[in-house]
């Protein structure tokens, strides 16, 4: 299908891309799982989850271009204006690694990327596992995404005026549960992001609206949603379930917070394993 991952912007070769985005492939299994981190984290966010899958799966880890662990010089503001650029990256990585079929595990912002990628290359994705997914963060007449535009402006204003303070305020909120280690970790990765990139990306995310295209996803999806998430209301998970094209199931995690892989890895792993297991049905 499309796959013109480096068509117009053909400047980066595949291997360079792999290097830039810190792509790693670990694990010994046959089936490939792509772990894609969300906004404000980098691939280290998966460290608690990773050991559980190392034995049975080949795991592809990479950083999004906006992550703090990627050299910010590589972040082209002109390119990453839409999510499609991230999708290009993902598909290019998978192509470069020679992955033909894989599971995709994405968190928050990455779920959008995963959905788009699965639309573009449906044959590539066996299953999408979406943690804290949302097709649209802003509220609408018919849709409750959890945020009003005014709130966003406030958030952006806060980010602009003092990024550090914002990080310290936001991290505990996002983590939700009382897990100091997770808060620390999330603050670290969040603060690693250059503030302007962080702001830019969050604007990109909040300007994105995937609702119109959800139906094109043909791969089965598992939506993992925590009981209380500041970013994604519970109804969104079921909206996704109803509108996604493929067979979708919702898994409710009885934990709190937007980052279950940091705050409650064991609980998440349980569900993840179940989702990744070859389906019994």
């Amino acid at each position: 299908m499309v796959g013109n991952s480096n068509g117009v912007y053909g400047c980066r070769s595949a291997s360079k891309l792999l290097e830039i985005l810190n792509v790693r492939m670990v694990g010994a299994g046959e089936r490939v799982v792509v772990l894609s981190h969300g906004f404000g984290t980098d691939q280290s966010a998966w460290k608690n989850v990773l050991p559980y899958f190392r034995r049975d799966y080949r795991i592809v880890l990479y950083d999004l271009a906006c992550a703090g662990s990627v050299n910010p010089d590589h972040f082209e503001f002109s390119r990453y204006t839409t999510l499609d650029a991230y999708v290009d990256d993902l598909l290019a990585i998978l192509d470069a690694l020679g992955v033909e079929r894989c599971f995709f595990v994405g968190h928050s912002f990455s779920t959008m990327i995963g959905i788009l990628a699965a639309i573009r290359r449906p044959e590539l994705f066996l299953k999408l596992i979406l943690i804290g997914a949302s097709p649209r963060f802003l509220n609408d007449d018919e849709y409750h995404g959890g945020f009003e535009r005014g709130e966003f402006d406030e958030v952006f204003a806060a980010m602009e005026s003092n990024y550090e303070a914002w990080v310290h305020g936001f991290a505990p909120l996002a983590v939700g549960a009382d897990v100091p280690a997770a808060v620390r970790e999330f603050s670290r990765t969040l603060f690693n992001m250059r503030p302007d990139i962080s702001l830019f990306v969050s604007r990109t995310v909040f300007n994105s609206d995937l609702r119109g295209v959800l139906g094109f996803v043909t791969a089965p999806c598992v939506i993992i949603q925590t009981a209380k998430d500041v970013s994604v209301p519970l109804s969104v998970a079921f909206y996704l379930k109803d509108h996604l094209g493929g067979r979708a199931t919702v898994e409710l995690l009885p934990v709190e917070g937007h980052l279950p892989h940091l705050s409650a890895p064991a609980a998440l792993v349980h569900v993840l394993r179940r989702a990744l297991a070859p389906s019994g049905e």
Partner: protein
Amino acid sequence: MVLGRGRKGMPTPVSNARACLAEEAAAALDEAVAAARFRYHAQTTSLHVVYALLLQSAGGAGAGAGSGGQSPSCSLLRDALSRTRSAACSPRMHLKVLERCFGMALDRLPSSGGQREGGGDGPPVSNSLMAAIKRSQANQRRNPESFHLYQQQQQQNAAAGVASTFSGVKVEMQQLILAILDDPIVSRVFDDAGFRSGDIKLAIIRPPPTILRFPHAAKCAPLFLCNFSAGDGFEAPISSRRIGFPFAPAAGQLSSDGGDDYCRRVGDILSRKGITRNPMLIGVGAAEAGRDFTQAIERQNWAILPLEIRGIELVSLEKVVAELKTDRCDLSSVDARLMELGKKATMPGLVVNIGDLKEIVEGKTECDEHERRLVSELTRLLDVYQGRLWVMAWSATYETYMKFLSRHPLLDKDWNLQLLPITSVRSGMASSLPRPRSRMESFVPFGGIYSTACESKDLGSSVSPPASRCELCDDKYEEELSIFLKGQSASVYERKKDTLPFWLQKSSTTGLNNEYNAEQTKNAKTMELEKKWNEVCQKLHNCRTTKTDVYREIPCTADTSNVSSKNRTSSKITEESQTLGNSLSISLGTQTITMANQSVSLPLVMESRKSDLLSKLQVRSSKSEQLRGVDLPYHQGDEHASPSSITSVAIDLVLGSLPESLSSDEKPARDVQKSHMEKMSSCLPSVDTVKRNESDVPIASFSCSGIQEYQAKSAYPVHPIRSFSQISNGCASTYGKPPFLISGSTKPNIELSSYKSFCKSFIDKVGRQEEAAIAISQAIFRCKIDERRRGGRLRGDIWLNFRGADKMGKKRVAEALSELLHGSKDNLICIDLSYQDGVVRPSTICTQQEVTEKNVQVRGKLHADFIAGELGKRPNAVVFLENANKADFIVQNSLSQAIHTGKFSDSHGREFSINNAIFILTWNRTIAKDLSRRKDCSSFCEETVLAAQCWQMKIYSEAYQEMTCCSSKSTIQKPITSQVYLQLSSSSKRKANLSDDYCDRHFGKSMSGKRAHTMAKGFLDLNLPVEEVETDASDDDYDSSSRKENSVSDNSELWIKEFCDQVDATIDFMPFDFDVLANDILKDINRIFQSAVGSDSLLEIDPKVMEELLAVAWSLEDRRPLDNWFKQVLGRSFTEIKHKNSQSSNNTLKLVCEDALVEEHAPRVILPSRIILSDNLSGFSKHWLMEICFNLFMKVQNGWQAPSIEVNIKVTGRFSTVNEDFERFGGVKCNLPPKFSKAPELLIRLQFQICISSSFFPFPSPMASSAPAPLPSLPLSTPVPAGSEPAAAPAVRVFLSRLNDSVRRSLSDRRPWSELADRSTFSRPESFSEATSRLRKNLAYFRVNYAAVIAVVLAVSLVTNPFSLLVLLSLLVAWCLLYLFRPSDPPLVLFGRTFTDRETLGGLVLLSVLVIFLTSVGSVIVSALVAGAGIVAAHGAFRVPEDLFLDEQEPGSATGLLSFLGGAASSAASAAVPVRV
């Protein structure tokens, strides 16, 4: 900022102004001052600055005469000008004109006539310019990117004691220009020259536009936000400088956003080689993107399209499609259109734009002839002109597209549609693009970005070389240490540092430091530092490898002992070393030992010091080494091959505090030792040598002196060791240590006795489970004495399996073990493997008894990591793993590895030695299988007791008769003999809460009837959890899921089986006999009851209460707290209820549980601190309702369909808090009767309904998505002000107070009247346009003053016409009384006729019009207003507004006099907007 507002002070001296400016800006100011001086102007104004800038840049650009350093900054303005100018004449001309204009404006300024102020450094800076500078300063300070910089500067200033008046902010050139452009005189001149200062500002703020808008610049590299600095030369200064408003609202001019991106993507699709593909844009932003693309083609904006398709044309069929919809078109026009298309499809190509598919799909259900015709024709054309004709369409949603496809099946194949998801919504995108900030990097700490990368790599690879890391840590530690010790004994040890290896440096540092300074506190601090760094090192660098580690801790331990011995406290360590000294016949007093402890230096250090101390110190050092043994972890697994590690074992024996080390003795060693027993006396020298050996061996490469000796003596290293252990036996026994520690040559006897005593103390500690205790003791001794078989190496770890019931008993045993073996409970690492972190567990009594602090530590960590971390901290630990069958895959792996190799590895592959650890695993699975069934007659099973939570208890009395009728259901256990008996309910449901029973009994028909046939009738049992409906989506159904998972991927069962085979011993626990305990408790209660109430009453105890009590009694170590509770809480309650019910004596009292958890516990026991006494039972609680709702919620979301569920619930209690929780569950609507809101706390029984219909859940019905997060609050939480009668008076009062407030507030905004009347600022306007522009500015600035003036004029004219005043007043009164403040309830009755509201309003309006226009009132008012306006206009026209600045854009300029009408409310609302993120 205050300066800006017309303070008519003296002008500021130039030097002061300069102080606020950055270098370039200051230079510009200098130029301006020079210009002012040149023209003999009294003040340097903004005009001068701009003029100077213009001249400068012209010079710089023309002749290159401008001073080199300043040219870029001037070009800033000039460049901006060149970009904003209109294209009427050539840029050069235009700029010249501008210059002339400025020149003329300057000429018009009054000259000072030669008198100079300000000490001769030029004409002082005018107030307006100064205000501009201040403004820019403030702007810059607010700027986030430079914020930190200024803070820093300020701090520095403060530190240096510099009183900086300008708080350190140096205004940059750009900011200055921006501020000056705000200056009215400047902008006026710009206006005259045909520039708009607003545009110039934008141009400065913004980088040069992209090629899109300026095709002539297309040859340069495309300029994007991020790379414009790499563009033409003149861009460089902008980008290298800080950009003023990094997030300035750009007006959508910069179009390199999503729109462009999508145009590009559409272009890609069009230009694809091979099969033609036709783009189909789908998504919310699709229409926009499509429009963008069509526009780009129409405007021939080829830059964004690929080369191949440049020059294509576009034909839009949108109109045709729209006509199709309206059925107004005929076939011929469509045909004509299509024919046209065919002709047009020439070489570069043609795109046919169909537009929004919605147009086609909507409106008609069936596709008609026209549509089909159109589509088929298009298909044909596409086929014919393949490669030259494309079709393009868009749709906002997937559904529309699918509908379209369903009408035209196979169309996606025929047309080769290429879907392009458009996910970016552009609204707000353009305005929100942040600029890149060149200095941003400095904001993020350097290490941040790259350290992560390193760490994430670390994550993957298992173990990184620890040495380097440790060195790193060590360096840091040393740095800190040296800072701390600086100036005290620095010279001494720092010299040594250079020559010694790193790990020695530390010890020598400490040691020498002690010797030379003998300062305790410092020592302690050093120790702390070192500990800290050790920990850091452990945590970060994973340096828990054996050798380095052992040595790293040497000084640390020695320090402890040092401190203790100096303090003359008889710490254990000191004592032991003393005794040891005695037994070795070395007369070492405490003093010497202290000395020894202080000199923790290793032999090499000694050698570097005086040689005659050598031998003595060796002994000492050896001793301190021995001391070290107390706390050190041993890693015998690897070291057992070398004699040195045996030495360390021996040391352990000496100290007698590490019993496990016994077990690792080698058998041959023991044999040898026996033969060498008589040589005990010779142990002293060998101690020496062995010590030497030990200290040298691990780092043999560096130690030059010890090796030979070591090699010489290593032939029989065993002998001294044995002798040591002999001695230690003696020692240890004298210390009253558990004798089992002693083994050795007299093994059999000692072992027996020690075993016995161990067993005894063990059983004492546990208090029950004697069999198990004996078995455990046996197992431990067997393990310690036998050599270990696993892996053929010596092992000190013991693995025990606890099977069977009595969870608390197991725990108690583990605690006792830890206490007996390691002296305290601290060494117990306790973790429940079934515990999923973050999962909210019901806080049962049994779990609450555990310390909750540990849970926080566990949270967010993997179990394996947690265990490993704890093992790292406390190598001698009892690891108690509960529910090992629930262990996750990683823990399983780690455990298997640990039992095989003796190393416990965490999830990152780091290994921790478990050589001295005891692992205890409990298994849940086996309970059900073998043991718990043994006592079926028991009335309490362990599960229920474990599940008991701390419910609120309640006593109520019941008439005797009723009791008897109830007792048909219950069996009375001890009916007559005791007054206190247990009610055994027949139902033992999962949550057999009493409220159910109660409900059954009293309102039973409806509820229980429903419950009986729940699923069949479509009702659902709300008391049952969801699992029964659908298993896999429930929240806490981990059992079933894990079983499923196990069967699929893990072979947990297999692992359990294997693992159980490998453990050292499996101990069966007897189930705890709860009945005995229950009887005990009953007896106790009976005693108390009898003494409190008397003999004529009965007490019935609910089983749930009993469970609660049992749980407490079971988990408590001693009964005293419980007894206290009985006495204090229960006894008191009995007495109280006795007083209450004194009149009716033969009541049955019931002690039951309420369904609410207790927050406030009684001291030292998790039981309610008070018992509620009541006449009746309050049935349902918040908790229970919550559960219902949650169950319901889960069911509905799992697809349970029901049109509406009606639940009738009898409710007692207060419900306002419940509502909030309902809302959390996605909105359950409660229709509560209004009087409910006044319900008191307790005991009002009300019938109310909860209507829960599935449509209220935000899914899956369409209503779902519309449900806003905070539901409109229920009537309860916001009681509506009911009465209308007192409404009128407050309304007037509120109105008046608001009016008053707002007038006050507005008047406070007024400008000083002196400013209004400043005579020096009046001048005749030169033209009408000038007058109007002045008026505009003045109006904005003085609006409050002007309003006041007009009001005064109005008032004067009214007062002079008393008649009109009277008329007006009466009119006002009529309005107020009849309409504004009249309650609408009683309708207006005038002259016997009833008027509706509308009629009243109409009448009043009519009356007003009549009164105003038919009397003189109107003319009076109008003339007054005209007069006022005239005054204002005159003033505004003549007042020169150049020194007036609005300091900041006041938010909402509408806050005039009339704001009180709505302003207050809106501001309150805006203030209440929650800050969510």
